[in-house]
């Protein structure tokens, strides 16, 4: 647990939107903004936040599907954006991704067998016979029957497709899996199956897991540490029980209060829990991005961007007044 697996230093990703036309000027969109994060070998990091907060972009950056605009990402100590293409290609075996949409993440024109074999063929792991045997083996590990392998994705259920997605991700025996909302599109009973499978695979293979989700109860269940993102920035990073005991950042507190839970205390009839709209990411507020929605905002929040700073043991927060707010709440 003590070895750093992935380290992000000042990572940012800026898109330019609205350009392309002859007359419109492109405006910068800071999808990910100065993110510093280290992920330890074998740990499960939960990444939560609402749509547009940058959690998907961050996972694509970690997967090296995109290049960061600023900063560097060190995977097992190497900045793979600074090495030749072939070195990146070789390194890709080590980190794999699981996607949200079980159907859209599989090529509808390929059978499950070909989907699973593709990774092994790309890296020429063994003879054809060896690859064929390995495909059946990983399929079995992921709870698929041999007859599932000759089916096309549309002939399978969502849960089965997600099992194929997981099998594809572990085919190359990676050390890191980035799971981007892997159970959001599934029914509750299937969700449990896939979460169990992810937990099992992680234990068997000693995987590091980055688990991205908007569903707080799932993240609370699976993650060791949780990072909360808001408009491209990590605003709180804490061990799971510290965070779910009531976060230090007002946004985390709002998220936790808003999450629907099947317990009587969650019945808040008639009272609004959350305030305000998410500001446009094209025109974020100055200083602290959460300021316009924050009940504790003061003048300093307008002026100064709060840095992610130590709050307690292993718990960091990007809020100027976290201590004051905590005192006020008790």
């Amino acid at each position, binding site marked *: 647990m003590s070895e750093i697996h992935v380290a992000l230093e000042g990572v940012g990703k800026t898109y330019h939107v609205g350009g392309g036309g002859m007359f419109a000027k492109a405006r910068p969109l800071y999808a990910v903004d100065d993110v510093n994060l280290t992920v330890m070998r074998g740990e499960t990091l939960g990444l939560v936040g609402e749509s547009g907060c940058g959690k998907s972009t961050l996972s*694509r950056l970690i*997967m090296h*599907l995109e290049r960061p605009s600023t900063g560097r990402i060190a995977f097992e100590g190497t900045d793979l954006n600074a090495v030749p293409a072939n070195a990146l*290609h070789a390194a*890709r*075996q080590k*980190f*794999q*991704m699981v*996607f*949200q*949409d079980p*159907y*859209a*993440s*599989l*090529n*509808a*024109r*390929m*059978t499950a*067998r*070909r989907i699973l*074999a*593709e*990774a092994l*063929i*790309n*890296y020429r792991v063994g003879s*054809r*016979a060896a*690859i*064929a045997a390995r*495909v*059946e083996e990983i399929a079995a590990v992921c709870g698929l029957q*041999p007859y599932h392998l*000759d089916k*096309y*994705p*549309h*002939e399978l259920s969502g849960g089965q497709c997600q099992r194929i*997605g997981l099998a*594809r*991700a572990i*085919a*190359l025996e990676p050390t890191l899996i980035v799971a981007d909302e892997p159970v959001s599109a599934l029914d509750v009973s299937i969700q449990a199956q896939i979460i169990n499978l992810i937990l099992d695979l992680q234990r068997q293979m000693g995987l590091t897991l980055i688990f991205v989700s908007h569903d707080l109860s799932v993240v609370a269940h699976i993650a060791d540490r949780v990072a909360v993102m808001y408009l491209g920035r990590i605003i709180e990073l804490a061990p799971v029980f510290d965070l779910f005991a009531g976060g230090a950042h007002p946004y985390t507190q709002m998220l936790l209060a808003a999450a629907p839970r099947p317990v009587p205390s969650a019945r808040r009839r008639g009272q609004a829990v959350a305030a305000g709209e998410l500001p446009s990411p094209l025109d974020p507020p100055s200083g602290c991005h959460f300021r316009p929605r924050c009940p504790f905002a003061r003048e300093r929040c307008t002026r100064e961007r709060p840095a992610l700073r130590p709050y307690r043991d292993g718990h960091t927060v990007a809020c100027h007044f976290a201590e004051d707010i905590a005192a006020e709440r008790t």
Partner: protein
Amino acid sequence: MSEIAVAPRPLLVDLLALALRFLRAHREVSVMLALIALMALVGILAPLLAPDPAAINPANRLKPPSAEHWLGTDHLGRDVYARLVFGTRTSMSVGFSVAAATTLIGVVIGLYAGFARRGGAIVMRINDAMMSIPAVLLAIALASLMSQGLTAVIVAITIPEIPRMVRVVRALVLGVRQQPYIAAAVSIGTRGVPLVMRHVIPNTLGPVLVQATYACASAIIASAVLAFLGVGTSPDVPSWGGMMADARRQFRLHPDLMLYPGLALSALVLIVNILGDRLSDAMDPRKARRGIL
């Protein structure tokens, strides 16, 4: 369960299996394809089905239908039925050659435009410029620049058709590139040509085929227009457009000479268009069952 199943099958085998499944599921498409095959057969077997279309017999001009000349004769005494049957060859070979050439060239350019950032923008501007010229006009201009012959006609019609295909392919490629299965393929180390052949092309195939049928239909009409205007093909080669041009002078007394090639042309274009329509319905993921083509 054998190793053959695991090895990446060639694209062609895959496509054939896919096509068979598809035809079984969509009857109207199969019927239209059968009709087109029938017309193609007529064109191929023309020498067996009809007498010499070029035989001139001035004594036998403008005769009504008879046992010898099923649809009568034209102003040079040539057999109208024979010219109609042989004309199928011209129309179909132009239509299908243009469709094939447009698809091939259009897909290549479209893929480039969809993947290259800067180069793509340049290609699209050239594309836009070409699309601002009416296709038939451009074809006429091109055909009159070239020597006479079927190849020249095909080239002249293909060039104005390409930009449309490029536009369709590029839009599709841009859409497919955003799909999670592409990100998944990149993650497992698929890159370059295999990425395009395995993941991009198969998933753009449906709309491209539909566009190809539209190209085919418009090429058949364009070839008739060229022949009607006497550009490109020599008057000796029997073609429906040429027949209509010849019939113009006798239109008052012998409107049937105009009617036969006109009907044949309309029928073929209609069949190809219906095929395109049904194909696009069948391939629309919102209408068809998920996943089949």
